[in-house]
């Protein structure tokens, strides 16, 4: 094996990929959230659909889409590979084990939380991305594809709203542990900055996930 493959098949190397892609996905969440805030503008979707047109036609955004896909693929693959290794490191389990007394729930359930996010992601992509790309979709008053109408319809179904909200809670817990954990993985632990990183991570997780969850709730209850 070359030094490169050795590095990225080691436990720390793989974890480094999870951390870097994880933080990259966090930056994606910010952009996605800010863009989607247009859903709240009271113009029956004109601004939102124009934004959708921009996102689907700008070449920089198109290129970023591929990087984003790779980010997800690497994050999920490496996290899965590590989880498998870790489960295999202790074949005989303890009869009595009180991890609840020495660690947080979210830190112990990153794989479970990630799986919930993954299932959500598939449903979410099918509902919006694929309909937008490959489905029959009406036009709005400005002649843009009317993704707003699709959104309105999706968010009128209670089960979809429930899935969305539950998934955002899962994402929040994933990030409450994950955000600060990624800095530790990168070796960035310092008594001057770590308390701030932990605080920012906590607020980030809650604000971003609450922001996303507010959208289906708004449509379901107020539209």
């Amino acid at each position, binding site marked *: 094996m*070359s*030094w490169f493959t*050795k*590095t990225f098949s*080691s*436990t*720390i*190397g*793989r*974890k*480094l990929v999870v951390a870097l892609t994880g933080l990259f996905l966090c930056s994606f969440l910010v952009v996605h959230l800010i863009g989607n805030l247009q859903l709240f503008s009271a113009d029956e979707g004109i601004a939102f659909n124009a934004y959708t047109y921009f996102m689907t036609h700008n070449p920089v955004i198109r290129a970023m889409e591929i990087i984003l896909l790779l980010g997800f693929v690497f994050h999920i693959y490496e996290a899965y590979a*590590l989880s498998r*290794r*870790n489960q*295999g*490191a*202790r*074949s*005989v*389990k*303890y*009869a*009595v*084990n*009180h*991890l609840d*007394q*020495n*660690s*947080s729930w979210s*830190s*112990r359930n*990153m794989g479970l939380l990630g799986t919930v996010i993954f299932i959500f992601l598939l449903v979410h992509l099918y509902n919006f991305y694929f309909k937008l790309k490959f489905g029959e979709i009406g036009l709005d008053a400005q002649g843009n594809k009317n993704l707003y109408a699709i959104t309105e319809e999706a968010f009128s179904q209670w089960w979809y709203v429930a899935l969305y909200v539950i998934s955002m809670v899962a994402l929040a817990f994933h990030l409450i*542990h994950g955000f600060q*954990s990624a800095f*530790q*993985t*990168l*070796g*960035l*632990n310092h008594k001057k900055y770590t308390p701030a990183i932990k605080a920012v991570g906590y607020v980030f997780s809650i604000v971003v996930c609450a922001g996303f969850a507010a959208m289906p709730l708004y449509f379901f209850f107020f539209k």
Partner: protein
Amino acid sequence: MAGNNPNSKPMNLTLKVWRQKNTNASGQLVTYNVKDISPEMSFLEMMDVLNEDLLRQGQDPIAFDHDCREGICGMCSLYINGRAHGPESGTTTCQLHMRKFSDGDTIVIEPWRANAFPIHKDLSVDRSALDRIQQAGGYVSVNTGGVPDANEIPIPKSIADKAFDAATCIQCGACVAACKNASAMLFLSAKVSQLALLPQGQVERKTRVENMLAQHDEEGFGSCTNIGSCAAECPVGISLENIAILNREYIVAKATSENV
């Protein structure tokens, strides 16, 4: 002697102890009752009482590791009621006292569990995987010749303190036992940062961390997911900051060392 310690009365306890004949045998929890245990006893003395009972009855005593019995050698182990070294933080099993338990308690006692720590017998496990990690790079080069003067190399107090704190690791393996992933990263990080922080450790700095992590992975330990159970259970309080130092050392070494 016990003054008005409310727990000063002798206790009767139910123990559920992991018994396993050898590495390849399958084991199971066996229930024993112990009587008149003084709260002044250490946990290991309580085990001695049980073993004397077993010997008197002509049964095989329970194998468990111990040596100094004063919290410094790192030989004792035991997963007690779901916690490495028992319910007290910052203590080894030999320093855990029976006053922490109450009359009538049931105590479940299991060995450290990790595939990298095969069971010798009962509660005694083979922790030589940690030795092999240490041998892969946990040393420094020294000049031959006369004995150097003490304090010849200036080292800032904060760095000396950090290195010293890392050096207090007694290699007990509680971090592995407590880790959900059976990872030995806290141990490894203590050994790596202890030497990486000091001027004496610079010669092998990059090769050390590369080789020690390779050995860690080869032994079959899991990876770190920053859960923190290890540091919570470590009897000497090795800090998680060491794992960040380890990650940093590894990333820099892999990016810049001459080893291809």
